[in-house]
């Protein structure tokens, strides 16, 4: 290969910590290539599905009146929720100066960027005429026609594009010194790439101070953006007049749910990274336990929100809302609802609350069920709400997803995996400088 990342030139034999962390970028196993091919195939299939759906019409999905929104919006909310894994958590940890964060932040911030890329696609995927998606952007033409700024979907456009820009920068800036390291240890196209991306970072003390300040300030601003983004996503529902969507609690409820699923995604990805790239020395049980505690808090918060939401609906006993309520609790969608409760609360709670169970394995199992549960939660909000209409004549519980919807939804998972895999090949997934290259000595586990 022409592009190589070489060990530090003056060190021979001994592997430094920095080299160990650059390791995933150096070697690509056969399994990695096979996996990439497989993922590409699934994504290609999903693209075919999307084109097919755009050419034939959205009728190929299972959506019909009044369930105008289904899997795609569920995916949209789910992925935007996952995106709160990174920037928000990392910013909070940075501002509170939690030192155990160092090996975690970049892995988390990368999740944000990719989840946003995927989630941000769905408002386009679900359009009836996706080729006109750019009409949502205000751009000048001789017709002088602008988008409707009163629409929550328009707020989504602004919120998500802001969030994507901010979190990309928030991922990129702390990476500058590591990119410079990679630049200094590489040849070929990688060298040219890193030379461009590292923006001639030298590591002067002025640069360091300014970078640290910028990251700190940006963390504060990014929290404001992240919270607003999922609140605005929740307003897609809450600002409507659909019974059971029109709820004041949705803003904080969605933000809490987003952080909840975000942490779960982070734990799963960390466990995979640890396994695949042998980062046991950096991603330690301590990190999983700490994130597990955070996850426990969110489990309780989520349980509180769901209870509050359901109880007020039930006690208010408004006929319009009770249609949705009963379809969730004992009706057509009851099995999904109770599976969600099982996945989001009943299984993870003991796993996270009991210290002995809050191991790597325990937190990963809890996270997996939470990811499933949170997807179901989004579905449970979107579909039964749309299905139970005010005029009882129009209630329709017949929505079943079609294979295009299922394929595209599954492919998002593959896209996330693929983007993440490619990212770890090109960028150091663990912040090398923040670890101080683990204080200048290679941990024992890295020596092979």
């Amino acid at each position: 290969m022409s592009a190589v990342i070489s060990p530090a030139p003056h060190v021979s034999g001994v592997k430094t910590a920095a080299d160990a962390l650059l390791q995933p970028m150096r070697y690509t196993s056969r399994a990695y290539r096979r996996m990439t091919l497989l993922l590409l195939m699934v994504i290609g299939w999903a693209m075919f599905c999307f084109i097919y759906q755009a050419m034939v019409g959205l009728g190929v999905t299972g959506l019909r009146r009044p369930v105008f929104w289904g899997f795609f919006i569920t995916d949209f909310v789910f992925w935007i929720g996952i995106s709160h894994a990174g920037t928000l958590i990392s910013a909070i940890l940075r501002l509170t100066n939690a030192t155990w964060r160092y090996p975690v932040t970049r892995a988390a911030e990368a999740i944000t960027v990719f989840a946003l890329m995927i989630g941000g696609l769905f408002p386009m995927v679900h359009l009836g005429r996706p080729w006109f998606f750019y009409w949502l952007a205000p751009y000048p033409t001789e017709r002088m026609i602008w988008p409707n700024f009163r629409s929550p979907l328009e707020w989504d456009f602004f919120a998500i594009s802001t969030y994507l820009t901010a979190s990309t920068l928030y991922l990129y800036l702390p990476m500058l010194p590591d990119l410079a390291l990679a630049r200094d240890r590489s040849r070929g196209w990688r060298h040219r790439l890193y030379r461009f991306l590292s923006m001639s970072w030298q590591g002067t003390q002025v640069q360091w101070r300014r970078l640290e300040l910028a990251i700190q300030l940006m963390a504060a601003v990014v929290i404001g953006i992240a919270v607003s983004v999922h609140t605005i996503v929740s307003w897609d529902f809450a600002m409507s007049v659909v019974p059971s969507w029109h709820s004041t609690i949705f803003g904080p409820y969605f933000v809490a749910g987003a952080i909840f699923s975000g942490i779960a995604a982070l734990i799963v990805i960390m466990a995979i990274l640890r396994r695949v790239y042998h980062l046991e020395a950096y991603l330690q049980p301590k990190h999983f336990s700490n994130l597990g505690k955070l996850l426990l808090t969110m489990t309780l918060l989520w349980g509180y929100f769901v209870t509050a939401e359901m109880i007020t609906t039930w006690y208010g006993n408004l006929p319009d809302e009770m249609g949705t309520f009963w379809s969730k609790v004992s009706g057509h969608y009851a099995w999904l609802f109770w599976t969600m409760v099982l996945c989001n609360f009943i299984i993870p709670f003991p796993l996270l609350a009991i210290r002995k169970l809050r191991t790597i394995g325990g937190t990963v199992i809890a996270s997996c069920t939470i990811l499933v549960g949170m997807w179901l939660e989004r579905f449970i909000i979107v579909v039964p709400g749309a299905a139970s209409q005010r005029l009882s004549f129009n209630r329709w519980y017949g929505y079943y997803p079609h294979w295009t919807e299922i394929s595209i939804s599954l492919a998002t998972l593959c896209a996330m995996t693929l983007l993440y895999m490619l990212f770890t090949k090109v960028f150091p997934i663990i912040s090398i400088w923040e670890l101080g290259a683990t204080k200048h000595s290679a941990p024992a586990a890295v020596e092979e």
Partner: protein
Amino acid sequence: MLQSITRWKYLLLSLLLAGLGTAWPRLTHPTPVQPLAFPHSLHLQAGLHCTDCHRYPAQAASAGLPGVQECALCHARLRTQTPLVRQALAYARRGAEIPWRPVYRFSASAHVRFPHNMHIAAGFACSTCHGDLRKETTAHLLKPLNMGVCITCHRQYGASTECQNCHY
């Protein structure tokens, strides 16, 4: 040397883009080839008016397209031996219509209606949009039929720019 090559690249690219930009209306709205090269110029020079054949621009939304039987009204006796007339008469004898290809046509996704009568009532001549057909044989698209052209004119003359005025 390297720099000059890079510059050439950009120059070429911008030329290509500019070319594409100018050719775009022609590419998207190519002038269709008519089954029969109807000479508008000859008919108009002979003293006919647009409305002698396209009869209803002042009355209806559509200006109207004459059927081949109407051609035959004159050409059954007039200049019957010219090749174009013979072709047209052949259609008429078979009881078929000439499959004219529409030149001024909106795409289906534009969902737009163009009422000729309102534009005539406002005092516009046919040539405003269709050009001087005394100099042309078959018609070609003079103005690109996009919304910018419509709305610029509507603004200029104070006509309604409400969506539903045209799109329904």
